[in-house]
């Protein structure tokens, strides 16, 4: 239920939100903070772009976005990767210093989560930058985009970070039911592509509806977007909630929308929009693709789309992502937005929940810190987490730690595991729903869940010998001392 609440932002956050209206704006802003580089040398599409993308993403804290504009065989074309590949880049988007700890980024996202007043501006199509160029005939995706193979054994060239807009085939005028999601897209020909979704996802539901009822399903594939868009296109929001609205609310600044030729809403400042239509009941051989669990998905038959038109800005940027064995840009892009809704949903019923870290491979492992209300309480919280919309499919391994353990500090989590886990007190729940591409599934789509309660013991538990905790000094005084030591190390004092 919308309450028209808006988020109150710091002056820095307001300045960023006002300034960043597109991918181009964000790349320029990142560059001013040493968080975006242009690769100076000519590169081959393979393996150079893959290798440089991996190298940029290896520095999870402050790895830069990378722009390629000397791609051999693609004169004049540009690619951007790793735009969301470091927490430093996400911090800058939120108007925070690029060294902001991940825990603080999580709480900034949480603080903005309660905002639910859509901030959307309409731009006439003839004034939208995305419409600077239009192609309706002789469409050739191989010529329009500097396509390349992301992982060595992918089945083809993938568009991995596009935000795909589609209308509900049975309720096409409903703005809220219009979906924006990130799905893997394999280019199959000059004007065809496959798009992989599953029935549990909004797009999968729409494909099923369209084919069941013989209705057209038109999509707009937006490439190179406002940086808030891919963060929220990948967030599990309700079916009738608009990802456009979420993205604008979280930024606290308007997003500019216009209408595509096929009638969907699109970002007016996006780099390129490929309009396509589902070829009802037609399938093509798709995959494999190096997916986020770090293994290749199999080869499958996947729905086929035909391109009906392409619009793009002058000198467009093909924004893409490296995804594969973690850590990758995929994990940074969606990690905080995976954690936040789980936290918000748990917090409603259990105010004792202190934080949720579901950064790991889309939440296949999650860590929840919670104050035990009574003995065994953390296990009940874990069960509730498994019943959240995202938890139903994704939360496979759950670790519960005390409220004074920072779930974003893995040294602290390991302390809790080392000193609080009783091997006969772990829970395995067999034959639960599971992400089909999880290689640890018993069969694709089914597998076991694991709950490790690493919270402190309470009566009537046997407390064991020596249960009294050391009161470790912490807080602002210790933070100030750490700062002082850091300055002494640099020789500045």
């Amino acid at each position, binding site marked *: 239920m919308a309450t028209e609440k808006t988020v109150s932002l710091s002056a820095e956050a307001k300045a960023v939100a006002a300034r960043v209206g597109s991918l181009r704006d964000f790349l320029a802003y990142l560059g001013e903070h040493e968080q975006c580089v242009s690769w100076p040398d000519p590169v*081959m*599409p*393979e*393996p150079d772009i893959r290798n440089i993308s991996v190298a940029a993403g290896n520095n999870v804290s402050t790895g830069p976005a990378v722009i390629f504009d000397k791609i*051999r*065989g*693609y*004169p004049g074309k540009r690619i951007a990767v790793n735009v969301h590949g470091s927490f430093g880049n996400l911090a800058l988007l939120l108007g925070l210093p690029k060294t902001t700890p991940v825990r603080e980024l999580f709480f900034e996202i949480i603080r903005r989560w309660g905002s639910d007043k859509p901030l959307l501006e309409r731009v006439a199509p003839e004034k939208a930058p995305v419409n600077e160029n239009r192609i309706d005939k002789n469409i*050739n995706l*191989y*010529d329009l985009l500097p*396509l*390349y*193979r992301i992982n*060595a*054994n992918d*089945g*083809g*060239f993938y568009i991995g970070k596009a935000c795909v807009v589609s209308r509900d085939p049975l309720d096409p005028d409903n703005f809220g039911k219009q979906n924006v999601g990130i799905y893997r897209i*394999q*280019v*199959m*020909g*000059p004007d065809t592509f496959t798009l*992989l*979704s*599953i*029935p549990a996802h909004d797009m*999968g539901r729409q*494909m*099923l509806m369209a*084919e*069941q009822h*013989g209705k057209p399903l038109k999509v707009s594939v937006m490439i190179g977007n406002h940086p808030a868009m891919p963060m929220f296109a990948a967030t599990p929001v309700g079916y009738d909630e608009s990802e456009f609205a979420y993205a604008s609310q979280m930024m606290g600044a308007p997003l500019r929308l216009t209408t595509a030729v096929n009638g969907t809403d699109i970002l007016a400042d996006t780099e390129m929009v490929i309009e396509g239509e589902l*070829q*009802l*009941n*037609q*399938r*093509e*051989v*798709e995959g*494999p693709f190096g997916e986020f669990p770090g293994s*290749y998905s*199999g*080869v*499958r*038959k*996947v*729905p086929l789309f035909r391109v009906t038109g392409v619009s793009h800005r002058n000198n467009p940027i093909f924004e893409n992502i490296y995804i594969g064995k973690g850590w990758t840009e995929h994990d940074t892009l969606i990690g905080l937005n995976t954690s936040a809704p789980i936290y918000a949903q748990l917090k409603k019923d259990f105010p004792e929940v202190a934080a949720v870290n579901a950064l790991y491979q889309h939440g296949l492992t999650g860590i929840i810190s919670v104050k035990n209300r009574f003995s065994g309480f953390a296990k009940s919280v874990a069960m509730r987490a498994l019943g959240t919309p995202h938890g139903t499919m994704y939360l496979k391994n759950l670790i519960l730690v005390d409220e004074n353990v920072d779930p974003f500090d893995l040294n602290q989590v390991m302390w809790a595991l080392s000193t609080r886990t009783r091997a006969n007190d772990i829970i395995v729940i067999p034959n639960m729903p599971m992400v*089909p591409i999880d290689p640890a599934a018993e069969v694709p789509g089914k597998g076991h869940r694991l709950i490790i309660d690493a919270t402190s013991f309470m009566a009537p538990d046997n407390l064991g010998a020596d249960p009294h905790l050391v009161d470790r000094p912490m807080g602002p005084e210790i933070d100030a001392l750490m700062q002082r030591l850091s300055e002494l190390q640099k020789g500045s004092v």
Partner: protein
Amino acid sequence: MKTICPRCESTGVTQMHAGMENDQVLWRVWHCKDCAYTWRDSEPAESIDPKVRPAWAQMKGVDFDSLRQVIPPAHKPT
């Protein structure tokens, strides 16, 4: 030499695009109509040489109609 698909070894392959540099063809992109593999002839051997590609990634002799459907079609295609 006739170009074959590096994955299923079909001869049903089509050139999709050519990358140019100084008015010379630098590479070509190919697509297989049978297994839908797409490749660039400038790629490392691990992606485009059937002798170097891992055995699990090869599809010679595979019945493509038997592949798993992620979203099964509601009706027969018209």
